[in-house]
Structures are given as C-alpha cells and as structure tokens.
C-alpha cells in the first residue's frame, strides 16, 4: 500500500506564525496527498484540537520524550530500551554505504534519509538489496542533492515502499507534490484527490517559510501553464492534452496565452480575441512581425497594452 509522509512542519520553524495560518496549512497538507504529517511536539501542541493523532508522526529530540496521544514517532537517536521504539532515522548519503546497513536489521522500524546518488545505479537492484540486508521494509526519505529525489521517492513507493518528503522540497527533500502527481498519472493513485487547493497551500507556505515558489516549479509554479510559442498554442487550441501533461484546473491553475517573439498567427488571433480586439485577417502577418520585433527588442513578452497598441497601428495601417 502506498504511504507518504509529509515532514514540511518538521523542517519549518513555525513558532512565530499565527495559529490560524499554521492550522490552515496543516489541514491543507492533509488534503494534498500525504497520508501522515510529521512535526515536532511543540507544533503538535500548538495545533490543539485541529491535530489528527492517527495521521500524525512526531519528530522526537530524544527517544524517551513523551508524546501523549501520538503513537507514531521518529527519532535520529537510538535507544533499544525504549518501548515502543520510535522509527529510527539514519542517514545514508551514498548508495555504496548500504553494505553497512545490516547492523540495523534488528531494530524494527527504520527510516533511511539520503541516497541522493541512487539514480547513478540500477535502483531496482538497490531497492532489493535494501530489503534483503534489513529484512524489514524501511521508509525512504531521499535527499534532493542532484534533483532526483522526487523520482527516487516515486520509484520506491511504486515498488511497494513508504516514503517521506516535503512540500516544494523545502529542506532539500523530495517535493511531495511531484511524487503525488507522478503517482496519480502513472498509477492512478488517489485519482479523486482535489488538488485545486495547491495555490492556497503555496500562499500559506510562503507566509510560513518566507520562501517564494519559483514560477516554473513543477506542478505548483504559477507560470507552468503559460504558453507562447505558435506551435504549442496551435496544438493546445486543437486539444489541450497535446502539450499539457494534466489540465491546469486539476491543480487550481489557469492557462494563459502570452504574446511574444514565438507567437504564431493562431496564438495572436486567440490572444487578440481574449483582449476583445478585432484585426482584419489580412493584417495579422504584418502585426505578427511587429509583435516579434518588439518582443525581441524588449527581451520579454508583450503586455496586453503593448499588444493592443500594436494591433491598433496595424488595423489603422499606421
């Protein structure tokens, strides 16, 4: 069974943020595809009645720390005398270090953090080795040192394992929203999950962390569904799936046709129509040349006002 844990709240220091924002962020994380949310005990206490203990993992500073009501716990310090034992978190940076894992075989519950270079190897064989050496099913929390963590997490989970990541990859872990979308497309995992909450989750994330989401960030970037080039716009106008992996509405985004250097006649026509501007068909090739020249001069796409100004000139023949 696929199981994902979101440890965003463990990574972020939310001590000073308003409780209302923290609570809403937590509630949206629960809806964004993770099965469990990990956080420190202080954050769990701040959430009060909003906390859902059965979907909560507490990151402990020490294995003997008490967490009444929360059974699932994880700690990077081991103490075999403590019962019930928390999940023991170990760091294995390099795949070549997995030969040392056998000593943890008897521990019971294990989380492996790291393995950032796994994609240099036959990762399916490495997965088999991990299971063989440990005789248990560890959780995997890949580090995103080489931009491969979402892929490692997704492959591990599709191979039957449990995995850990964070929203937008904060803290250098696997961006969970990428794994959630990959599982949805590849395995139809949670196909009814309402991901239109993602823009609000991004807003809250930025409020809590002070980190802005890059506009082209996979799945959640605000400009991911902008489209300019003539080939792409024409293809999308015929059938959006020609050039979109999933619909913008699925992630609460919208498609925006941008007019610029790479626009074609079809995209220009569409863009003008959206602006309520009518230019005779015969004048479109001339207007397109002007658009391309101006966008190249400015080294950017044109604003609506700039497009309308050029359209007016083209229409009036000036």
């Amino acid at each position, binding site marked *: 069974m696929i199981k994902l844990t979101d440890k965003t709240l463990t990574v972020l220091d939310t001590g000073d943020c308003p409780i209302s924002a923290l609570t809403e962020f937590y509630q949206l994380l629960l809806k964004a595809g993770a099965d469990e949310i990990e956080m420190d005990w202080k954050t769990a206490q701040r959430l009060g009645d909003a906390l859902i203990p059965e979907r909560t993992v507490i990151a402990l500073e020490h294995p003997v720390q008490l967490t009444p009501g929360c059974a699932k716990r994880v700690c990077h310090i081991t103490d075999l005398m403590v019962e019930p034992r928390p999940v023991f978190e170990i760091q294995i940076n390099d795949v070549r270090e997995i030969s040392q894992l056998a000593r943890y075989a008897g521990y019971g519950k294990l989380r492996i953090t790291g393995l950032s270079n796994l994609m240099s190897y036959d*990762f399916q064989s490495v997965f088999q080795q991990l299971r063989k050496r440990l005789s248990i099913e560890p959780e995997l929390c890949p580090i995103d040192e080489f931009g491969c963590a979402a892929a490692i997490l*997704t492959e591990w989970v599709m191979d039957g394992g449990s995995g850990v990541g964070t929203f937008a990859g904060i803290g250098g872990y696997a961006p969970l929203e990428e794994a959630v979308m*990959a599982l949805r497309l590849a395995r139809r995992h949670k196909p009814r999950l309402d991901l239109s909450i993602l823009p609000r989750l991004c807003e809250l994330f930025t409020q809590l962390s002070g980190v802005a989401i890059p506009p082209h960030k996979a799945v959640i970037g605000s400009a991911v569904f902008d489209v300019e080039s003539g080939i792409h716009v024409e293809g999308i106008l015929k059938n959006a799936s020609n050039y979109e992996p999933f619909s913008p509405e699925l992630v609460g985004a919208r498609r925006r046709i941008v007019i610029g*250097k790479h626009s074609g006649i079809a995209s220009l026509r569409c863009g003008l129509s959206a602006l309520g501007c009518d230019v005779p068909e015969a004048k479109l090739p001339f207007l397109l040349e002007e658009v391309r020249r101006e966008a190249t001069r400015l080294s950017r796409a044109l604003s609506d006002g700039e497009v309308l100004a050029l359209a007016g000139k083209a229409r009036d023949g000036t």
Partner: protein
Amino acid sequence: MNLQRAYIIDTTLRDGEQSPGCAFSSEQKLRIAQMLDRAGIYQIEAGMPAMSGDERQVIREIVANRARAKISVWSRMNPDDVRLAMECRPDMIHISAPVSYVHIYSKLRKNKTWLQKQLLDCIELAQSGGFAVTVGFEDASRADITFMSALAALMREEGVLRIQFSDTVGVMTPQRTYDCIRELILCGSPPVTFHGHNDLGMAAANSMAALRAGAFGIETTLLGLGVRAGNCDLETLVLAARRAYDLRPSPHDAQTLSRKAKNIFYTH
C-alpha cells in the same frame, strides 16, 4: 574506473527559448552559442529556421563562428521547413515527427501512413542536400512503443544518424524511461538521445535512466529553461552524472555556464 562516455546536446537556443516571455536578441544567441561551444558542449541546437529570416541569419552566424561544437537546427516534418533549415548550412537537421496517437490524430489530424511517408520525404530531401539527419520522436512518452520501435528500425535503414525520444509533456518516470530507451536500442534503432521535460520534477532522473539504458546523449538547457516546468537543466544533470558518466562540460564549467546564463537571461 572507465566511465561511460555520453554527450550533451544543448537546446537552450531552440526549446529553451520557447519558454513564454523569453526572447533572445541575435547578440544574446551568438553569445550563448559561444559560451556553450567554449565549455565543450558536443552539439548546439541553434534554433528553428522556419521562424524568421532573422533566425536563419543568426543560425548562419553561429555555424560560421563555432569552434568545435556541432550545430543542428530543428525542423517540423514539412518540406518547406526542411528547405529553410538547409539554407542555414548546419551540421545536422533535426526533423521532429509527432509519434503519439494524440499528436498524430488531434494535432496533425493525419494518420500513421501519412506520417511515415511525410517523414521519409523530409529525410530524403535533407539528405539530398548532403545533411546528416536526426529524427525526433515527439511525444514519444505517450506513443505506442511497438510503432516507435518499427519506425526506429526504419530510420536506421534510411541512414538517420540518431533518433530522439522526446518526453514532450514530461510524464515519464525513470524505470519507464529506461525500459523504453532499452527497447528502442534492442529493436535496432540508430543511437538514441533523450529529451526530457520537468513537469513531474523528473527530467534529470529520467535523463540519468536514459543514459543507464545506453542513450548516446541527453538534451539539456541552461538553467532548465523551457516551456511549463522547463527542460533538463544542464548543471543538474552534469552534477548528477559526474561519477557515472564521462560528460562534457565538467561540473565546474557547467556551474560557470549557469552563472553566465543568469546574467544573460535576467539582466535586460
């Protein structure tokens, strides 16, 4: 330890520039091409000749000024576009052939028979001018692997230099990438390159899987520039692959390229 040799094909000037809002001037394109060439990039995809006369002019200048890199141009599967590509006198003409059913039937509004005939006509036209031809399987990630395998074997018979597996909408995962590239190679394809998009954040990982499957090279862009969530970022790939593959540029040069690219892309 002998590392497997692999090659970078940089498409910043073609697919990277398709990123909405990106509009390089001729001077910028020449500067980027020069940077890539000096850093040891194997092949630079310099642009789309069918776009405009200005584009053809700057591509001709890139061809004239390069020191070592091979220069290719991108062409739709259309004889008029191929003729414009030939005017630029590149080392290679890359002809893009949409191979998924959704692209064949709803974008081209044609069928597989038409596709194959049109592709062969375009290849013959480019080869008649003495150009090496590479063929891109556009939207390969959603295409029928049996159809692609047969087409890839045909490409070898036609003397096509390489084929490219394009994950046009960025939906591949590493194991699937490995399996597809492996199957194409085993079915007698010419050498295969991989072009990945980052819609699921997996462009670098998929590129690594393609190399492990035996791909000849990977298409990248500077800073991962490209439509939607971008293409495979050159620096990310070079750093990820450095211990398993013999790649140019070096990690240091890739980082320098990224820094210079930031100055060009974001300083107007």
